[in-house]
């Protein structure tokens, strides 16, 4: 409800509402983008997402569904960047786990966060959306353009991979 009001005020053209919207959603957006990309790329991509959001906002038909719409744009921008970085769409979607920064575990706030870097893109993405962004299975399905059943199976696989990955790193079950 609060988001819908904020988005409607933005669509009307209230400048302070736009600032409020960016302040409210910048951290969740950054969290998602940063979990998917390196720091340098995340900065650029986050800005690209905000530009696309501002340009698309006047045409958003369901202001109450702002969050899934925002993350759909974010996902598309992230995937474009990954395709650009890895060369081919299939390559990025089935990419091998990204090499982890040895210092990461020292600063990460939770085991989930610490293990994410070791997961393939698809599984990492679904965990970030579902657990870190607190989005519903239906919203995740809309954002990733897949059926809800696929979201659930991908979540199961992601949890299993994460568990295995954390155990390899020495975390207790």
């Amino acid at each position, binding site marked *: *409800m609060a988001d*819908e*009001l904020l988005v*409607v*005020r*933005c*669509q*009307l*053209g209230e*400048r302070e509402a*736009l*600032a409020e919207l*960016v*302040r409210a959603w*910048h*951290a969740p957006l*950054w*969290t998602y983008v*940063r*979990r998917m990309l*390196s*720091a340098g790329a*995340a*900065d650029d991509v*986050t*800005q690209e997402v*905000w*530009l696309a959001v*501002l*340009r*698309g*906002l*006047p045409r958003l038909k369901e*202001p109450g569904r702002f969050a899934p719409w925002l993350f759909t744009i974010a996902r598309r921008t992230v995937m474009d960047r990954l395709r650009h970085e890895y060369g081919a769409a299939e390559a990025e979607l089935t990419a091998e786990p*990204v*090499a*982890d*920064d040895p*210092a*990461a575990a020292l*600063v*990460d706030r939770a085991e989930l*966060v*610490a293990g*994410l*870097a070791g997961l393939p893109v698809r599984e990492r993405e679904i965990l970030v959306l579902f657990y870190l962004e607190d989005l519903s299975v239906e919203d995740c399905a809309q954002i990733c353009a897949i059926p809800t059943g696929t979201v659930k199976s991908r979540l199961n696989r992601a949890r299993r991979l994460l568990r295995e990955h954390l155990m390899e790193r020495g975390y207790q079950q």
Partner: protein
Amino acid sequence: MMGDLSGPSPDDALARLSGSLSRARRIGAVVALVAGLAGLVFVGLLWATEPGELPGRTRVAFGGLMALCLVWSGYGGWALTRRVPMFALDRVVAAWIALAASVLTTAGLVAVVPRQGVAAIVGAVLIGVSVVLAVRAHLRRAALLRRKRELS
């Protein structure tokens, strides 16, 4: 990959978006589009309704003016569709700018173009389109204001 999670602050992001959020830039794009189209119609109709054969240099001048108007309208259209967001209030302002330009262009056409019937028809089309745009912009804004009151 996952180490440093401190990103730019929301205020940094806002500062970098200020260009896209500039109202002057949006209005500038609208003026470029409207003035370009109005100039294109005006010069084009003037040229098309000339009774006699125009000298070569005059034709070049007319062609150059039309090309200039086309470039400005193209820039305005590109900026409005690809670069700057048009919120409800901007659309209302843009529609009124278009209506004012249409009335001025029509008055100019009727005063200058030799075949006044053609000028009146073209002017009526311009004004009609502008009125439709203005009504749609006002309806959209009214619907959003209504929704805002419901949610407040």
